[in-house]
C-alpha cells in the first residue's frame, strides 16, 4: 500500500505544456504524485487547473512534455478504467434518474457489481433518491451525484475538478472525510479548487497561476515561504512576486518588490 517513500509515483508529469492559440493554458508543469495522498491544485479561474487535469486524464494531448499515469504514458484508453474523473460541469444526464445515471457510468467502466453503485450513492447521501429524475435535483444534489458517478468503479486515482462548489458546508465535511478514507486505502486524489479555505485538508498543495506552479508543499510550508498567516495572503504575495517575472525570462527572474508593476 502506502509504505515507504520511494513508491513508484501514480502520476508523473514532465514539462507539460498545452497551448491554445496565443494562450499557454499549462506552461511547463512537472509533478510527481505518490499513492495514498491528497493533492490540491489551487489557483484562480483560468489559471489552467482544468486543462492540467485533462492532460493527465488523456482528454487532451500536450503541446509538449509527457504525462505518465499509473505507469502508462497518457493518452491511453485502457488506463481510464482505473481513473475517476469528476468534471467541473456536472456531466450527468438530466433526463435520467439518479440510479440510472450511476448505473450508466458503471456500465461504461465495465462494473457489474451493484453494491459498488449503492455504496457510491449512499456516500453522497442520495441512497434514498434512486428514482428521482435529475431534473428535479437541486444544484448541490447534482454535484453529489456527479461525484458518485466518478466513484462507481472504485478508482485508484481520482481527479476532482472543483468538487465542493455548490455543496453545503455540512456535506463538504462528509466529502472530505470520505476523500481521506479513500486516500487511507491507498487511492491518490487530486482536487482542484479556487477557494483557499479547503486547501489545508490536502497533504500537498500546488499553487497555480497562468499555467505555472507558483509554489508547492503543505499549507504550512507555503505560508512560511510567503511569510503570511493565511493561504490567501500567501497566494497574493507569491503571485505579486511572480507577475513582473512574466516579462522577463521565466523562472530565473529573482523575486523583487515591484508590487506596483503587477497587473
Amino acid at each position, binding site marked *: 500500500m502506502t509504505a515507504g517513500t520511494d513508491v513508484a509515483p501514480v502520476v508523473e508529469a514532465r514539462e507539460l505544456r498545452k497551448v491554445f492559440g496565443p494562450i499557454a493554458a499549462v506552461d511547463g508543469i512537472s509533478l510527481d504524485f505518490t499513492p495514498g495522498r491528497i493533492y490540491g491544485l489551487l489557483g484562480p479561474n483560468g489559471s489552467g487547473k482544468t486543462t492540467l487535469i485533462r492532460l493527465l*486524464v*488523456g*482528454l*487532451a*494531448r500536450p503541446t509538449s512534455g509527457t504525462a505518465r499515469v499509473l505507469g502508462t504514458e*497518457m*493518452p*491511453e*484508453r*485502457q488506463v*481510464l*478504467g482505473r*481513473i475517476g*474523473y469528476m*468534471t*467541473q*460541469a*456536472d*456531466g*450527468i*444526464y*438530466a*433526463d*435520467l*434518474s439518479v440510479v*440510472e445515471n450511476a*448505473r*450508466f*457510468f458503471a*456500465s*461504461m*467502466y*465495465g462494473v457489474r457489481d451493484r453494491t459498488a453503485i449503492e455504496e457510491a450513492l449512499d456516500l453522497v447521501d442520495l441512497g434514498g433518491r434512486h428514482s428521482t*429524475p435529475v431534473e428535479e435535483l437541486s444544484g448541490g444534489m447534482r454535484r453529489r451525484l456527479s461525484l458518485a*458517478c466518478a466513484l462507481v468503479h472504485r478508482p485508484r486515482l481520482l481527479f476532482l475538478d472543483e468538487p465542493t462548489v455548490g455543496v453545503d458546508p455540512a456535506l463538504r465535511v462528509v466529502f472530505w472525510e470520505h476523500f481521506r478514507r479513500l486516500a487511507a486505502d491507498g487511492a491518490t486524489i487530486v482536487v482542484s479548487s479556487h477557494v483557499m479555505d479547503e486547501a489545508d485538508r490536502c497533504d500537498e498543495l500546488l499553487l497555480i497561476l497562468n499555467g505555472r506552479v507558483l509554489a508547492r508543499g503543505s499549507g504550512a510550508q507555503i505560508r512560511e515561504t510567503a511569510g503570511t498567516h493565511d493561504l490567501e495572503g500567501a497566494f497574493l504575495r507569491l503571485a505579486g512576486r511572480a507577475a513582473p517575472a512574466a516579462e522577463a525570462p521565466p523562472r530565473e527572474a529573482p523575486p523583487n518588490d515591484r508590487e506596483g508593476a503587477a497587473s
Partner: protein
Amino acid sequence: MNVRRVAAIARRIANGFKRDHRSLGLLFGAPVLVLLLLGWVIRGQSSPATRIAVVNEAGPLGAVIVTRIVDAARTGGLQVVDIGASVDSARAALADDRIDVALTVEPPGTPGSTGGPVIELMTPGVISTDDSLHVAAVQRALADAVAGTGAPAVVHRVLYGSPDPDVLDSFAPALIGFFGFFFVFVLTGVSFLRERVGGTLERLLATPVRRSEIVAGYSLGFGLFATLQVVVILMVAFGSLRVPAIGPLPEFSAGLGIANAGSPALTFLIVFLLAIGAVNLGILLSTFARTELQVIQFIPIVIVPQALLGGVFWSISSLPDPLQPIARVLPLTYAIDGLRNVLIRGEGLASQTLQVDLLVLLLVAVVLIVLGAATIRREVA
C-alpha cells in the same frame, strides 16, 4: 467492441425517451397525424361536377358537334351552363367563376386543325391542378361520347396498384422514408448536442468507452425507435381494420388501407439503414451547433432539399436536368425509391434497382458513421 457498453448507451437513450413524452409524441404521434390528415385531404377531396359552356363558332357543321358535345356532357355527369352564344360571354362566365371550362367549336383552318373543326378548351388558369381535374373530366365525357360510334375507344390501365388512382399509394412510401429520416435526425442531433454542451460527452470520454461503442449505441438506440416508428406508420398506412359503429360513433376504419405488395422485412431494412445514416448525420452536425435551436436550423438545409428532390412529391426524372445529379446523391432518394419498389411494385432482393437502393443506403450510412465518429474526439485511441 464491448456489447454491454453499447447496450448501456442504447438503454440510456431509451430511458431518456421514457421521460420525454413530447419527443415520443413527435416520433409516433406526428407522422400518424400527418398521414391521416393527408389521407383525408386526398381521398375526401370534393370534386363538384364540372361546369361547362359550349360556344359554336363554326356555323351549321359546328352546331351538330355542339349538340353531340352537350349530350355527351350531360350523360357524362357534367353540368352544362347556358351563358349565351358568344365567345365573349363564355370568357365572362369563366372570369366570374360561373363555369370551369369553356368549349368553343372553331371552324376548320384555325391553327391546330387537321382539316375538321377544332374544339378549344379554355380554363381560368388560376389553380392549375383544378384546371387539370376539370379538363380531364371533360375529356373523359367526350371519350364516352365517341365510344360506340366507331371511333377508337380510350381505356386506361396501370401496371401496379389499382386503375382508380389513389395518390396515397405513392405518398405512403415517401412519407415513411421522410419521417424515418427527419425525426431521427432531429432527435439525435439535439441529443448529441446535449452530450457535447452538457459535459456528459467529456465525462463519457473519460471512461474506457470506445468511439465505435458510442456510435453503435446511438445507432442502436435511435434505430430501435425509428423501427418502432415505422411499425406504427405501416399499421396506419396499410392497416384496414374496420371498426363497426358503436353507439353514436360511426363506423370507421383503423388505418388508411393503402394497397401494398411488399415484404415487411425489406421495409425495415431500408428504414433501418436510413435511420443509421440519420443518427450519424445528427452526431456530425451537432458539432456545428451551439444550441438546440441551431440544430433545428439545419432542417431547411438538410431536410427540405431532400423532401423536394428526393421524390416525395415529384419523380427524379421529372426534375430539371441540373437538379437530377443532386437528387441522386441524397439518401432519401434511395430510401423512397427502395420503399416504392418494395411496397408498390412488391419487389424482392432479386430486383436490381432495389439492390442499388440498399447498397447506396449502406454506403451513405458507412460514410456518415465514419464522419460522425471523427467528431467524437478524445486524444486516446
